[in-house]
């Protein structure tokens, strides 16, 4: 396994505002890595520095063993190995899906087959439809097709499923996993915690320009060892108790009720609860 992205001491300010205040990251080959954080946390700035769209003030950044801020022709062969899916775009409305995808294939050294990619993102039936006639979800899948046509080793996905219906999101997650299974490394930014939980091998939470924690979704913020809340009906009242040993509590309740516990519910902190706590939002 090799490190695809390594960042240390990354800083970037806009005027007097520090957007990124010392970020360290290491992303390994073949992982789906999610970067979470509220708006203005430094998420977009960090990703845009990694994508080579922005220069940093200080810090060491290596993406596929290359400094993304390098100017000129050297950047071209690096861009050949990455795929970028930006936040919502509305371009190429007057080209068909196939025209756009097959044209973008021309930019790359070793592209995938346009028809294969269109099939992979599930747009085969829309192959000859103009971009402007696509629905929001189809449009997003075209964005992905354009991002992966070059057969990238590393894919940046920025808010990929905003505006999707639940079914389309499931289909999209399936596609992302398929790309990872083919060997690509994926850096995902998202507002949806369930998306990060479903897809990511590891998540990083960024707030006020700093990484607060990097962990697997089920370990983040001490989630695995956090207290579980057990609740049940006792006569007129709903009672609840926080417990480090919920199984034992349930067993004793079961004995007490002689079997079935009325309206039993055992709940661990969701990724969203943990996340909101980490970024300091009072969600009680």
């Amino acid at each position: 396994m090799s490190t695809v992205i390594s960042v240390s001491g990354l800083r970037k300010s806009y005027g007097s505002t520090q957007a990124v205040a010392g970020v360290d990251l290491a992303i390994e080959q073949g992982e789906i890595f999610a970067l979470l954080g509220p708006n203005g946390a430094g998420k977009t700035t960090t990703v845009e520095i990694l994508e080579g769209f922005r220069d940093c003030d200080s810090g060491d950044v290596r993406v596929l063993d290359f400094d993304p801020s390098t100017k000129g022709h050297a950047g071209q062969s690096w861009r050949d190995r990455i795929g970028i899916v930006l936040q919502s775009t509305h371009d190429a409305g007057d080209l068909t899906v196939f025209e756009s995808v097959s044209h973008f294939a021309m930019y790359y050294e070793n592209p995938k087959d346009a028809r294969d990619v269109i099939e992979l993102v599930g747009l085969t039936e829309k192959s000859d439809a103009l971009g402007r006639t696509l629905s929001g979800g189809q449009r997003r899948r075209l964005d992905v097709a354009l991002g992966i046509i070059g057969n990238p080793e590393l894919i940046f996905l920025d808010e990929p499923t905003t505006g999707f219906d639940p079914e389309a999101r499931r289909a999209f997650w399936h596609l992302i996993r398929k790309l990872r299974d083919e060997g690509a490394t994926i850096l995902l930014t998202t507002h949806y915690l369930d998306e990060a939980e479903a897809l990511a091998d590891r998540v990083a939470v960024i707030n006020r320009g700093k990484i607060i924690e990097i962990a697997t979704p089920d370990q983040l913020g001490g989630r695995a060892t956090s207290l579980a809340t057990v609740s049940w009906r006792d006569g007129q009242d709903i009672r609840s108790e926080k417990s480090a040993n919920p199984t034992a509590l349930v067993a004793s309740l079961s004995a007490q009720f002689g079997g079935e516990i009325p309206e039993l519910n055992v709940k661990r902190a969701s990724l969203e609860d943990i996340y909101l706590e980490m970024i300091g939002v009072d969600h009680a």
Partner: protein
Amino acid sequence: MRKPTALSIGIERGRLEIRQFLRQRESVVFTMLFPLILLAIFGSVFSNSISEGVTFSQYFVAGMIASGLVNTGFQQLAIMIPVERDFGTLKRLRGTPMPASSYFIGKAILVTLSMLVQVFLLLAAGIAFFGVHLPRSIDKWLLLVALLVLGSACSTILGIAFSNVPKSGRGASAVVSPVVIVLQFFSGVFFIFTDLPHWMQQVAAIFPLKWMTQGARSVFLPDSFATREVAGNWETGRTFAIIAAWLVVGLIWAIRSFKWERD
């Protein structure tokens, strides 16, 4: 598989640009038909003779051909590129290994083709309805070709440079079109240049459109008309020098200011 060169990607981009242009009916009508409508109106209303053997319509056709260089290059690109910047087209391209030059080659192909079609349409209408004649000497043909090549290149580069001025794609045509229309009034497209107030002539002489129209007159009007120009002759050398100077200014301006994304 061998990777295509910047030029071959640029040519392919040009084909796509043209395909997209033709699929946008409004742009075809606006860019191609509007000058013909203007020609029909002005050419019919002001058909009087302004000098021996020269009607205002002929004077106007020459001016509209020069304007065609500005419409298809400067105006078209300075409106189109901000929209592409807003839509994320440019940022997306920047994120691919496509050489930047390919993008500009594609635009240049679009401008060249639309310029040739527009000049052809204006000339055809001028010849059919307004007594315009094609040049009769090789010299004048060469002059025409040189004017179209240099004028269109200058206009294209300035359009790319000016594309950073409009704050948004939606507002672009409100910023760009008045610039073009005012320049047309000042540069002797709608009126006879020498009839304009002196200060207006002075202002117009700074900008390239005045020289493009004068150049077009030197191609399409009889040489006897040269005495009616400001300097009493066609000033061909100065015409090309000033257009070339603007090309250089535009190039430096474009290189320094071109942005691939909205701030």
